[in-house]
């Protein structure tokens, strides 16, 4: 029987939630790596038993863990993320030059075809890649060495590369997003990069056509339509139909177009999910009601999804990597909150139920669809 494995990274460890295709009864394992911050856990599309976890902490630095048995056991692999050459400087919060310093891995994006190949997005922003199962990591330094690099600045969470989207058939095409630089596209497997921020407008940037400086929070793509990208920016929900060549706003109708995650339905490329948050100053849901919003029109028209989600006294956040979809016939949607709840919907968002309620603050959620 088909099933789902939901991989949850939290402030104090990782958890693996497993269910059959009904998604009513869940088995919970964890905490794995108890006490460590787990920014991201993601499985290989090419081998679902191979799972990667980014484990870090202020005391002992960065560790990368790999499981080859679906999360039952783990072993550390290589963790040396050395920038290529002399990394130079970016801008600090006050506008002064600041040396590039590795802090942690925010996002791990396994190859669609090779279980030994993974891209890693790190803070300070850069893209790394392993092709040997995580034993060694090499920087794809063309991104950091993009001419705009010295002008990149950190967002409040640090200058992190948090989004990596791989084209489903063209291995050369990669999209990334960096807070608070913006979005970038490579057409040569990461050797060179183009800033793809035309049409983004960000409060506080005097130049409306600024190439960089945009605080992109997350991006999503449906594999059947890889030129269409959806973006949750600091403010604004945006869409591009030309692989990032230009963007337009599709956030009208939301109670707030500030938020962190964005995702696309597994089988409906025009069905998009966001979680509106009150504002950049108040990181809680509007009116104390946790509502996932769904658009069935690729943005522009949105409906609140509330059935089973708390509709009073709810003041949690859903962080940028804490929403995911599975690929079962009836698409499942999952969100994890900073209050430690993971909510799941087995019917595309129509109804929700908590899978777990009392985890540490959730940093990331990914879903694996199992055969």
């Amino acid at each position, binding site marked *: 029987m088909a099933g789902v494995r939901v991989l949850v990274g939290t402030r104090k460890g990782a958890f693996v939630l497993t269910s059959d295709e009904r998604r009513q009864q869940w088995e919970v394992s964890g905490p794995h*790596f108890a*006490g*460590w911050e787990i920014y991201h856990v993601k499985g290989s599309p090419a081998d679902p038993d191979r799972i990667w976890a980014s484990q870090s*902490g*202020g*005391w*002992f*630095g*960065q*560790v990368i863990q790999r499981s080859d048995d679906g999360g039952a056991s783990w*072993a*550390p692999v290589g*963790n*040396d993320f*050395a*920038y290529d050459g002399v990394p130079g400087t970016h801008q600090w919060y006050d506008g002064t030059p600041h040396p590039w310093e*590795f802090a942690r891995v925010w996002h791990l994006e396994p190859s669609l075809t090779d279980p030994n190949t993974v891209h890693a997005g790190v803070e300070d922003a850069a893209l790394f890649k392993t092709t040997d199962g995580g034993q060694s990591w090499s920087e794809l330094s063309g991104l950091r060495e993009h001419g705009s690099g010295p002008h990149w600045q950190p967002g409040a969470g640090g200058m992190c590369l948090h989004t990596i989207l791989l084209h489903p058939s063209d291995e050369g095409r990669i999209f990334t997003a960096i807070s608070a630089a913006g979005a970038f596209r490579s057409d040569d497997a990461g050797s060179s990069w183009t800033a793809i921020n035309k049409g983004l407008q960000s409060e506080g940037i005097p130049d409306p056509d600024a190439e960089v400086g945009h605080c992109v929070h997350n991006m999503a793509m449906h594999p059947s339509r890889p030129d269409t990208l959806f973006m949750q920016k600091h403010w604004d929900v945006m869409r591009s139909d030309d692989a990032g060549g230009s963007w337009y706003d599709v956030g009208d109708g939301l109670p707030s177009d500030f938020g962190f995650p964005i995702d696309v339905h597994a089988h409906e490329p025009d069905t998009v999910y966001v979680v509106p948050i009150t504002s950049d100053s108040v990181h809680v849901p509007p009116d104390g009601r946790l509502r996932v919003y769904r658009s069935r029109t690729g943005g522009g028209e949105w409906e609140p999804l509330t059935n089973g989600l708390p509709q009073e006294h709810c003041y949690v956040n859903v962080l940028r990597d804490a929403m995911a979809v599975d690929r079962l016939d009836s698409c499942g949607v999952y969100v994890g909150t900073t209050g430690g709840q993971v909510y799941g919907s087995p019917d595309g968002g129509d109804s929700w139920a908590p899978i777990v309620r009392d985890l540490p603050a959730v940093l990331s959620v990914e879903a694996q669809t199992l055969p």
Partner: protein
Amino acid sequence: MTRVRLPYHLRTLAGVDGEVVLGHAATLGQVVDALEAAYPGLRGCVRDPATGRRRAFVRFFACREDLSHVSPDDRLPDAVVRGDEPLLVVGAMAGG
């Protein structure tokens, strides 16, 4: 031999209980070299791999002395080098 007492998270990461016993090491740098060679999962956890410097929230103690600021090339106390006393790797008390 050199005895090293690791903090909880590094024992877990290395998959060990209690003290670890390494070959002869006379300096802090040699101890960390031997530790990382014996337990590759600990590489970068005690010292920054880019700079080689002790991580800010890691401290070293032995023989009731704080050795956190000694040079990696300075000789450790004889009791540590002989294995009579362990080198303590301590995670600083900070955070939540």
